[in-house]
């Protein structure tokens, strides 16, 4: 049976790279004694695949991976067994069973939303100063930033990738406490992909602040699939069991 597992990656685990998180789950699944399926061949490996890879430094409360299981118990039991063995910072939030024809999560991701808050090492009012520029930026038809690729640097219009941008007034239970935060919903996935860092950089330009990556913490709230007008979180296609 194919399951989709939603999890968090918070706190100091933001310094663990994507591949290492995959290895961490492989071990956790074994410690939790879940009956994951193994591939055939001389060195069998677990049949699991992760949705969007997460850059170093980012935290999240909306990550997903899919796994094929030979036997399953119940959502509650499997969650409990995993959470009992996962390190602090990673919590399984939900497990759903996918319909047989479900596409792998990696291929269907279309958007993510994030909150941005201040890293405690930087000036206190930095986020407020950026928030002041949000209305201006939302009114601009074109937002250009320098985008670096492996080979070149070029001005790119990031506006089409910004689905929403405003102040965020709630406190996430999965981050450190912040006084001010910015919310952004951005395109992500294989068709159009916009990194939150580029939006912050654009805001900094508006506010006349030199952009420094380490002044900001980026936290993903949720990963979505579907059209821009009808986005739903990756977990909605499945059912509890």
């Amino acid at each position, binding site marked *: 049976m194919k399951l989709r597992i939603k999890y968090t990656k918070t706190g*100091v685990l933001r310094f*663990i*790279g994507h591949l*290492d998180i995959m290895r961490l789950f492989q*071990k956790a699944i*074994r410690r939790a004694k879940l009956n994951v399926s193994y591939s055939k061949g001389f060195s069998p490996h677990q049949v699991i695949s992760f949705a969007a890879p997460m850059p170093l430094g980012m935290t999240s409360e909306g990550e997903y991976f899919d796994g094929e299981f030979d036997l399953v118990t119940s959502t509650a039991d499997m969650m409990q067994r995993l959470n009992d063995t996962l390190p602090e910072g990673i919590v399984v939030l939900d497990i759903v069973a996918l319909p047989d024809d479900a596409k792998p999560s990696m291929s269907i991701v279309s958007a993510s939303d994030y909150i941005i808050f201040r890293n405690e090492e930087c000036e206190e009012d930095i986020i407020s100063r950026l928030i002041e520029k949000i209305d201006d930026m939302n009114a601009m038809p074109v937002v250009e930033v320098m985008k670096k690729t492996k080979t070149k640097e070029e001005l790119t219009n990031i506006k089409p990738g910004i689905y929403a941008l405003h102040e965020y007034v709630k406190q996430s239970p999965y981050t450190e406490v912040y006084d001010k935060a910015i919310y952004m919903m951005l395109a992500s996935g294989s068709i159009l992909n916009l990194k939150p860092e580029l939006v912050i950089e654009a805001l900094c330009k508006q506010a006349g602040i030199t952009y420094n990556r*380490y002044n900001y913490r980026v936290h993903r709230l949720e990963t979505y699939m579907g059209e821009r007008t009808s986005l739903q979180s990756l977990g909605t296609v499945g059912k509890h069991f």
Partner: protein
Amino acid sequence: MAKLALSERILMNIEKPARYIGNEVNIVKKDLANVDIRIAMCFPDVYEIGMSYLGIQILYDMFNRREDTYCERVYSPWPDLDRIMREENIPLFSLETQTPIHDMDILAITIQYEMCYTNILQVIDLSNISIFSKDRTEDDPIVIGGGPCVVNPEPIADFFDIFYIGEGETSYDELLNLYKEYKHSEMTRKEFLIKASNIPGIYVPSLYEVTYNEDKTIKAVKPIMDGVPASIKRQVVVDFENSPYPLKPVIPYIRATQDRVTLEIMRGCIRGCRFCQAGMIYRPTRQKPVELLKEYAKLMIDNTGYEEISLSSLSSSDYENLDELLNYLIKLRDTEHVNVSLPSLRIDAFSLDVMSKVQDIKKSSLTFASEAGTQRLRDVINKGITEEDILNGSREAFLGGWDKVKLYFMLGLPTETDQDLYGIAELAEKISEVYFDTVPKEKRNGRVMINASASYFVPKPFTPFQWAPMILPEEFTRRAYYVKDCFLQQRNKKSLKFTYHDANISILEGVLARGDRRLSAVIYDVYKQGAIFDAWTEYFDIHRYMDAFKRHNIDILFYTTRERSLDEVFPWDHIDAGVTKAYLAREWEQAKKGVVTKNCRSQCMGCGSAVYQGGVCFEAKN
């Protein structure tokens, strides 16, 4: 979750920040309010190497079993972070609680190879502890060294308050109890060290004085006061079966060099190869019962989730219940999806059968540690493997589908001649001939490959070759070229390959392994010149050392190529490693005559290790 010692900016600007954040699965957490002794346990190399080392996991587990003690880990910061820490004055910290090492009671450093000596200074220095023990005050942690290198700790004697000689499982409790007394009383650091020197296995180098002869050899190493023992006895766990074992080892997030469960099946080696220090200093050989090992294997796989298990010992084929253990592990492989990795197995029908079940034959190669090219020289070094063993093993393996063979040799062994060097090429050729004789044309896919590699022999203390001269680097290079030429003369030369190691690191190992206290100044000097991570060829700079030797008027040939006389006092003579000097001398004489010595199970040769009252020395013999 502890607040990290390093800032976001630093962590995002260095390689693999996961090396420094702790919080791994299975770490020990303790309430600091209930802890009396805080220990930082250090492996002075990069995290991925240090985390792979079983000894630290054993001690970490053992110390933390004590309620009054909290042991945390620390590794050498990689050069990228090292630079930032110096620029920004950031003190070195422990992983678990991210506490500055200077706030700990004890900094315990395990020393596995000579090339980490400058990293030891790095760790002490970054911890803001005075590098020389004589400069430390009551506020500084006690710096303790342990591990195999400390059977001759003299080159680093000036940097340590205490060396723990031998296996950690025996005397640490007594030492920690004494430490507690010291901490809660008026006892001075000096008084503590004097008392500690009376605990078995504890060597306090500052309490011993070294005097020298005119020819620069050592006259004597003597305690500077009464009440300090003249010799320090290496510690051995006699009750090996019941000694603590880390069944819930810490699991690193990033891939460690050993990314698997390690099961120690046996300690020590019965063989007595004359070049091998480990084979001498872990005597007597002790093994764990197979039932216990099966239980451990299952528990550790359950506790870690690792997908691979590997056996640890110096010579697994000598473990008495190997068949039963391996059959059990193969069963685990099928039920639990655990790969089994098998180092140090003698190649024979049994091991090939097991290997064919656990490895992809097409991808793996067979390994023979022949060490020398001719039977004569193998007899000199007491390497109990014959040409027949190698050729038969190869034949079986070729029939089983293998077509890659690795051969290990050393160049510069005592009494080695060009004939022995030619023997290396000849042996490789013979193996390839066996291949062409046994595998019919239609079954050959691709070419058989015989890869021979040679390292530069370094004589080590507490081996029969501790008296032996090392060859000059120029001579090593000549011999290596000669062997290469010999390979080119072979008929199947296209299937044979010969490579040899870089000589520079071995030269230095040669100096440090049999070095004395006069070398401390050199190590300090090169460290001050910027040397760290000398075990990494990309950071090692031999010139830095050569210049320092010159500045300190040290002739390295005194340490390397000089043949010692039988009555010379060695820098490590005050360490009693179990094997006696008389036995080693006997073995040195036998070596020169080319006479082999039996292994402990066939016949006890009276090496001296029976004083420990356990292990193979007391197994029922037929």
